[in-house]
């Protein structure tokens, strides 16, 4: 589930902080100077020794340093720049067959050892209620290794002036093109994560992520109407070179209705289009409800994939561990065991992959020290696997974990989170324009809009940013007030065509919420433009008093 957690993330920095900052704002020399690996190893050893001595049969230690910068602009002003820095240690143990966890922000040998002892005490208290002991799939200790997100330009070294000027230029472009109001933001994340476990791993990782959402708003005061158009970029796991869009990173959507991006983003150009299109939405035709063939662009479809396939195939949900919050799943074990459950039509293939460069869930090792990998989830339309962590692998007969463990902070316990789950491209050559030629009555949808799905990932409703009517193989005019409703199995079985590899690209979610206490993770979902026949579309226009 995508949650509005960025508000919490921003607020965590505290207070009344409307800070326009130009220049090299973060004390970069500090941020670029990571904690010494040998010091982290000593801390980890102190925790593991204390845990083992207190009776733990297993212990892992995560030492985290999280550096975030959020820049918020409104129209021609920089509204807010928040720099957050948080460091600490989380210790997870197994004692008496049960888990225990404790974290501390005091990074001394004594403090981490005490946290380890606390974690063991908690595990022992939990063991009394345990029905079966935790069973960890084996993982081979990898010794002392390191992994880092590949990037060309480090966001921490880019002067804030340059970043703020890009956002302001985008806002100006949007307003010049017709928007009355513009907002643009830049989220920058650096996670320095050190993992050690009693299995013999000492893994040092350095992850970098970026997202630059924008919103153009057009207002017609005479009619009291307003409409928005959000940006069409996706969050990525790469360096600041993401904003150096070259001609090869740009291409036209079907019918030339707008410009789309792959591998890099032209924020200013996208903002200009957003301003123009927000204004056009004020007078767009309101959709006639009914059944339509939907042609869904990857910038839109990623969220439908995320909700209806990504979350539905999380093994912890299937087993009931999320029952109290995010829910369970309709994709139950018996469906998987039957080896014939038709999740989608035969052309539907989903792959889980933590290794795709630039994807948000791309890591070297997960938060249990398991190397990143790739595997099938849905093959030729049949459900063939789930997403598992070390303590779940045995449930589905796997000998090793899928490497799906993640914690959003040193202070959070790690648990099962989805890898990048992506729809594979069609095998025959097909462009979005070719796909539309076969559509008599349809709608072409681009961009992420509203989204909601039930607690078993079945009934859903999605909206988008841009809608275009398709009549007899041609895009005719823009539409408004569109949302489609379906259920997961019917929807994926209605998949009638996929564009080929040339059109495959990733969207992503930066703040995907799950768990109690709720944690956020980020994940990418790739797909080509894809067609679904006969989907129910509703009209969302309403009048209030």
């Amino acid at each position: 589930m995508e949650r509005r957690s960025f508000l919490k993330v921003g607020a965590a920095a505290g207070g009344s902080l409307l800070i326009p900052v130009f220049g090299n704002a973060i004390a970069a020399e500090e941020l670029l100077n990571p904690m010494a690996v040998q010091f982290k190893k000593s801390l980890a050893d102190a925790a593991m020794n204390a845990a083992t001595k207190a009776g733990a049969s297993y212990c892992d230690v995560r030492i985290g340093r999280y550096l975030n910068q959020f820049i918020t602009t409104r129209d021609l002003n920089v509204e807010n720049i928040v720099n957050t820095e948080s460091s600490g240690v989380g210790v997870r143990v197994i004692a008496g067959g049960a888990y225990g966890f404790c974290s501390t922000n005091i990074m001394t040998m004594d403090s981490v050892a005490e946290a380890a002892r606390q974690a063991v005490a908690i595990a022992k208290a939990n063991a009394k209620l345990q029905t079966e002991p935790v069973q960890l799939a084996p993982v081979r200790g990898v010794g002392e290794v390191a992994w880092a997100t590949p990037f060309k330009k480090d966001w921490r070294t880019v002067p804030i002036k340059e970043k703020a000027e890009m956002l302001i230029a985008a806002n100006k472009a949007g307003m010049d093109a017709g928007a009355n109001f513009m907002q643009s933001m830049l989220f920058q994340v650096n996670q320095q994560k050190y993992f050690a476990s009693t299995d013999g791993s000492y893994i040092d990782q350095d992850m970098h992520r970026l997202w630059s959402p924008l919103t153009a708003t057009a207002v017609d005061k005479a009619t009291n109407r307003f409409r928005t158009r959000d940006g069409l970029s996706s969050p990525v796991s790469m360096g600041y070179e993401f904003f150096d869009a070259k001609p090869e990173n740009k291409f036209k959507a079907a019918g030339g209705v707008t410009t789309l991006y792959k591998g890099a983003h032209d924020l200013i150009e996208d903002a200009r289009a957003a301003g123009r299109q927000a204004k056009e939405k004020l007078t767009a035709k309101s959709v006639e409800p009914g059944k339509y063939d939907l042609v869904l662009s990857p910038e839109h479809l990623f969220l439908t994939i995320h909700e209806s396939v990504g979350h539905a195939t999380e093994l912890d949900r299937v087993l009931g561990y999320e029952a109290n919050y995010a829910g369970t799943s309709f994709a139950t074990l018996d469906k998987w065991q039957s080896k014939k459950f038709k999740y989608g039509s035969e052309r539907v293939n989903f792959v889980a992959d933590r290794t795709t460069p630039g994807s948000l869930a791309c890591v070297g090792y997960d938060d249990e020290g398991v190397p990143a990998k790739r595997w099938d989830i849905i093959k030729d339309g049949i459900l063939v696997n789930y997403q598992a962590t070390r303590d779940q692998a045995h449930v589905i007969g796997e000998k090793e974990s899928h490497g799906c463990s993640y914690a959003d902070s040193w202070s959070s316990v790690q648990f099962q989170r989805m890898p990048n789950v992506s729809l594979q491209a069609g095998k025959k050559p097909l462009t979005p324009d070719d796909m539309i030629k076969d559509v008599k009555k349809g709608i072409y949808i681009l961009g992420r809009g509203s989204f909601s799905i039930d607690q078993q990932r079945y009934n859903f409703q999605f909206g988008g940013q841009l809608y275009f009517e398709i009549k007899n193989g041609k895009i005719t005019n823009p539409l408004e007030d569109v949302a489609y409703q379906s259920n997961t199995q019917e929807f994926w079985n209605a998949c009638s065509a996929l564009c080929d590899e040339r059109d495959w690209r990733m969207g992503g979610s930066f703040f995907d919420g799950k768990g109690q206490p709720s944690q956020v993770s980020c994940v990418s979902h790739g797909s080509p433009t894809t067609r679904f026949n006969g989907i129910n579309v509703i009209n969302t226009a309403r009048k209030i008093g």
Partner: protein
Amino acid sequence: MKNLSQEETKRICDKVLSLTKADQCEVNLSGSRTGNIRYARNAVSTAGLIEDTQLAVSVAFGKKQGVATINELDDKSLERAVRRAEDLARLAPENPEFMPTPTKQQYKASETFFQKTADIDPEFRAQVAAYSIENSKKNKLVAAGFFTDTSKFTAIANSNGVFGFQRDTGVDFTVTVRTEDGRGSGWAKRSVGDAALFDAREASDVAIEKALRSVEAKALEPGRYTVVLEPAATSDILAYMFNDFDARQADEGRSFLSKKGGGNRMGEKLFDEQVNVWTDPWDKNVAVLPWDNNTMLAREHQDIIKNGKINAMNYSMYWAKKQGKRAIGAPGNIIMAGTNKSTEELIANTKKGVLVTRTWYIRMVDPQSVLLTGLTRDGTFYIENGKIKHPIKNFRFNESPVSMLNNIDELGKPEILSGDESDYQLLIPAMRVRDFNFTSLSDAV
């Protein structure tokens, strides 16, 4: 983390304020100790204790501001935070919307701290889980739940003489109980500041009863129905709407509170006249800090909707000055008037309708009309002639809280809730509402 005393936080705040040569300085210091236990499949899955502190320092030279945060409180770290904030401020351009830090405020303490909650230990948490699990097992049901207790302190200070310190505690508990075959599900939620008011057994029994009653659900055609909404079913729906009570958004024409031709709808009757909503930091049921951490302005009792009319909106300090209004601290709680009637009484007065325990995954579809979509979950029942007749399958709804609060038939007793997706403490009643718009069926249980 040691929960710092008022004197200790004052000393740290004074030290930070003395370290800077900036024109103004704001300090926000907080720390928390949060315990939790999570269980599922009738066994504990995780439990833990999280402790942390946070210091944010904001300084300004003229209209140029900078901020730094840190989670260490030794003298060297304090100095580092101040110098880093000053460095940032010197690099900053002038902010045309800069507002000076407030002058001294009167913060009348609210009752937000309860020792019994602060004393909660791992054994207490384990016992909460045990109640749910044991009673569920006895009924051949499967429990999943989450209990969390927090004890924290917050201190704010600025160079204009503002200082505030308060401790607060809270307990949150949710439990979902499902039948072994997955055909029935019930849920309960409790949120209190004082653990003395929390009864895990009572809450678990509510979820158990709903789970047992919810099997054999029948399908009802989607459409417009009279609904009896338990307080938890409306908490997120209403929180969405109250997030939109921003005067600037309305004045600028991009809110449901915008007026045709310009301006906002202050004073207009938008809801049924039974609708009365206010905020009050000192309300004993949902007490919150007597200041708004974002602005350091004191909170006040404020009527937001009076007899169905818009009575107040939120003004930022900048927008208040521009519009000639007085800015006060933004609300931390939302309280809606109800009656003494139980949910059972609301059901008894319903000829045909749907009882909704809980709503789920609510998202904005159209901000122009505050059209929201979401689903029912964990206990949806058909009511006929004043009685629950049988469980029904869950629905997706597409409905606006503005329309909903216009279609109120009857209000029930308010309950304390914390919204899933909002930071408000809520005290809202059960309500019976006409013409609630269910647009499709969900097979999810």
